């Protein structure tokens, strides 16, 4: 069941991620103070439990070292210098005890602070859950309620668009397939219970188990790909793409500060994809240089382009390189809108040669197709002189964790929601398999499978009779 019990303590990153400066982690609920006290030590021998309301305290963010997690008393690592404010309910935004931790470090630090809070016993907030609590605890007055109304209205249109995009996409299709399988299975089980008197075909335990296993495998695969943590652990897969000769390989070399890829003035130099690891402001990048995209001249180039397409498909982030010294090519326009659900940075290269392409021209093309999940960013640079590379680095960092200042925050949120829902479905089906193995009767299996189905339905927007309150503000930004 998706969370949403008022007695849980919830936490989330309350500021847009990916930017430098201060980021805030917010905790709310009955255990907000003790949980926060586990991850923050105040300076000057102050105790968080006795902190004054609405006052900022200086402290250190302490997070247990990952490697020592198995040892009983992991010595905590000082991660960041932070400012902490305690707001006791009902005089807080949500009407419950709230602690806000203002961190200086980047998105990674915020993410780790959240993870530490979850380890302490908090739960990641559902989208809009802070607002929901404020609402339920009577903290919103009439005008605010009106504002909430407007936001829901706006958020649902965005939400609808995102949902539709995702439904068209692979995720939606795969979930639909799993749902179909489960519904078919459930239909069998239910018929076997409600229509014993009639001769409905019998389904064997072994077949039930096989179906459950199949769907579970699929869930695990999806979960692997849905995992945001993967990006932190394994790096952000970043494909450099563009027409031949725009300077992709030069860009790779410039970022690596090494002559890793062959660069030449002959279009079609790069024949095969090439991958290198790189750390940009704490974000691990797996940078992939690709063969230039055009109508292939020979079969080797064809294969190269096939590999490029595959790299695009697997990428988390696209660096779309344009040759700024030439006017836009029709093929460039195609590239701009490739895989709209992916984050992208559009790079106008060769700025040292004088620009034939203006930013407003690009944005003009983008505005016509405002269907990107995350708004594209645009950077002018020269791979040759290195001018503008810093801008690119900042851009990559800000996009790395899924969002930027302008990005509708709910996109990352909707992914977190997906993950929670997928986990819930998985737990349901694992329980179903256990029930089957234990020889429990069909009603129990059916209950477990229904739990999974409801969870999957939450992703595709098909809603059953479940907890509607949870859904109320689900199109809201997290931590707002």
């Amino acid at each position: 069941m998706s969370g949403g019990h008022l007695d849980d303590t919830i936490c989330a990153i309350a500021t847009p991620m990916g930017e430098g400066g201060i980021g805030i982690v917010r905790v709310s609920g009955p255990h907000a103070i003790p949980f926060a006290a586990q991850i923050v030590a105040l300076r000057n021998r102050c105790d968080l439990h006795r902190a004054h309301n609405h006052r900022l305290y200086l402290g250190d963010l302490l997070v247990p070292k990952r490697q020592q997690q198995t040892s009983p008393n992991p010595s905590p690592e000082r991660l960041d210098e932070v400012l902490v404010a305690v707001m006791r309910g009902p005089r807080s935004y949500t009407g419950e005890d709230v602690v806000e931790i203002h961190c200086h470090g980047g998105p990674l630090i915020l993410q780790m602070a959240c993870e530490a809070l979850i380890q302490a016993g908090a739960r990641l907030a559902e989208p809009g859950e802070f607002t929901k609590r404020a609402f339920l605890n009577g903290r919103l007055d009439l005008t605010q309620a009106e504002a909430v109304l407007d936001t829901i209205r706006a958020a649902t249109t965005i939400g609808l668009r995102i949902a539709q995009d995702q439904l068209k996409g692979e995720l939606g299709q795969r979930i639909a397939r799993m749902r179909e399988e489960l519904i078919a299975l459930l239909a069998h089980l239910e018929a076997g219970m409600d229509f014993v008197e009639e001769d409905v075909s019998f389904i064997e335990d072994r077949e039930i188990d096989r179906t459950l296993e199949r769907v579970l495998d699929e869930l695990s695969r999806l979960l692997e790909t849905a995992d945001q943590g993967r990006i932190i652990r394994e790096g952000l897969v970043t494909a450099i793409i563009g027409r031949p000769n725009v300077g992709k390989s030069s860009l790779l070399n410039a970022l690596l500060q090494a002559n890793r890829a062959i660069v030449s003035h002959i279009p079609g130099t790069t024949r095969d994809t090439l991958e290198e690891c790189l750390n940009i402001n704490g974000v691990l990048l797996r940078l992939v240089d690709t063969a230039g995209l055009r109508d292939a001249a020979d079969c080797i180039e064809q294969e190269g382009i096939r590999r490029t397409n595959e790299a695009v498909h697997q990428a988390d982030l696209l660096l779309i390189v344009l040759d700024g010294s030439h006017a836009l090519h029709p093929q460039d326009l195609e590239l701009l809108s490739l895989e709209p659900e992916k984050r992208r940075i559009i790079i106008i290269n060769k700025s040292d040669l004088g620009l034939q392409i203006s930013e407003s021209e690009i944005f003009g093309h983008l505005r016509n197709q405002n269907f990107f999940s995350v708004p594209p960013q645009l950077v002018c640079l020269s791979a040759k002189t290195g001018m503008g590379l810093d801008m690119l680095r900042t851009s990559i960092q800000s996009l790395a964790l899924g969002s930027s200042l302008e990005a509708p925050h709910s996109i990352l949120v909707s992914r977190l929601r997906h993950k929670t829902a997928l986990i819930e479905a998985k737990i349901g089906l694992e329980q179903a398999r256990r029930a089957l193995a234990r020889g429990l009767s069909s009603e129990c299996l059916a209950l477990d499978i229904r739990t999974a189905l409801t969870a999957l339905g939450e992703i595709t927007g098909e809603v059953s009779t479940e907890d509607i309150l949870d859904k109320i503000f689900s199109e809201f930004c997290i931590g707002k």
Partner: protein
Amino acid sequence: MALQCDIVVVGGGHAGCEAALAAARMGCRVILLTIDPTKIASMPCNPAVGGIGKGHLVKEIDALGGEMGVNTDKAGIQFRMLNRRKGPAVQALRVQCDKRLYGLAMQRTLMHQPRLTILAGTVDRILTHRGAVSGVQTDSGERIQAHCVVLTSGTFLKGLLHIGLTHVPGGRAGEPSAEHLSDCMKDFGFEVGRLKTGTPPRLDRDTIDFQAMEEQPGDDPPKPFSSRTRAISNPQIFCYLTHTNEHTHQIILDNLHRSPMYSGIIESIGPRYCPSIEDKVVRFADKARHHVFLEPEELDSRSFYPNGISTSLPVDVQEAMVHSIRGLERAKFLRPGYAIEYDFFPPHQLHETLETKLVAGLFHAGQINGTSGYEEAAAQGLIAGINAALKVKNDPPLIVDRSQAYIGVLIDDLITKDTREPYRMFTSRAEHRLLLRQDNAEARLIHIGYRLGLVSESTFTAFQRKQERIEQELARLHRTTLSPDRLSLEAFERFGIDPPQSHTTLAQLLRRPDLFYRPLLDCIGDHGIEDEELIHAIETRIKYEGYIRRQEQQVARFRKLEERRIPENFDYDSVKGFSSEVLEKLKKVRPSSIGQASRISGVTPAAISLLLVALDRFRRSADSPAA
């Protein structure tokens, strides 16, 4: 001078009987008005009560102090617990009844009920005064004054019988239909819909070759529906199973053009779960045969009911088809099968009390609400009768919700779901199925029946005593530990049970799916308790503990949404942002709570969020003093 009473119940079917009895038992003066009092509680379709989902309803009716369970026990000639091998939530009792005994027993109960008068007559008009019921007028012009009217007129409203291409007005075979009431209701502004149902021919026992069929015995000993039933006294009988074959199907296909369904005369929608044999053959063309159960209608009559071949084909085709079935080659028809079309009032026009939203004091129950089945009808009759009586007495209404009973699921579904075919109960309709078991029907509902005065002191005390024994025994099973000593090891082996590995409680052992109370206690030489019903309840509580707890958590969440009530005077038009479809649905149903609103088909989560915020605004502005 006009007759006077508190409540008039119109119709003497299963809904009407429960309504009249409940209201009279709660102290109201009741008149039961029916076309033919000798047909009260007749069973025009199959001669059985209960089954999966339906049996649950009967248990609940019984727990609330209704009559159907007790009456079925009096008339039962074969008792069968279905799904015995499945879990406790889907086990249900099904009872073959002697139709004549069923009607007689119910009529006797009605006749002996103080404050209840039975009158013969057809109602032509519901009388109102300022939008509220004031009585009824019969076709003979007689007026009866009453505070409440419970309308349970079944399939009689503009009933049309079809046999082949001929059709005649009628409520049931050989009985007239009620023609005027429907128009009167339309004048009040009620939306009227049309539904269809059917019944198979009746066959002469002496011309059926039972040797060629499979015998279907009942349970021995039979277990009654009601805890109030002491013993089952009727002789018990067999039913028989045979099948249609490809020849049967060919006969039907060759004559489809002579079926009212397929030639377009019947346009109303029939139930998908109880299709005519024509439907089955057309829709499941690849199925080579279909079940036909032969069920006696009465002990002392020759009439047999061939369950599974309901039809409205012309009589000659019906005969040819029946004669193609094994064992029925020479079967003589006592009566042909027929289909019936009738008016119903789409039930979104009702409150959860079954009172109509349009006319205060008018209640609808049974098939006129678009349900099928005796049990569904009786359940509604009981609730309508109770609420009519509570209204007369000025007491708060009784609303049973989805987490409490199948009755709650039934009424909520009727109100929120579009009725496209006659509604029948299935266990899969109940999202809290594991809690709504027939074994705990009393534990869920008897206190309500007792409070209303429908359950006697002695029945209630007997129930409480049973509960105490269950709790005590459960506590003992949790307390008693077993050590794997030599003696009990041998005993375990003798009983074919894997011995426990270490110190375990009896309750822990019983959690094993393969280990049951009686063998376990026999094996360790412990006497325990004898009562099978209690043992079943105890095993269920232990074996399904985890699942039951999870469902209880779900119920807690469900309740939160049900508790967010929507005021009756809430103005949906004032909420900006609803799509026109959602707005139309909400205004049509006028849900009583956020929970109910969310169950209306087509109402999206986004709409629910808008509604919630708007409701909050509504509440705040209502709280603040008017400017």
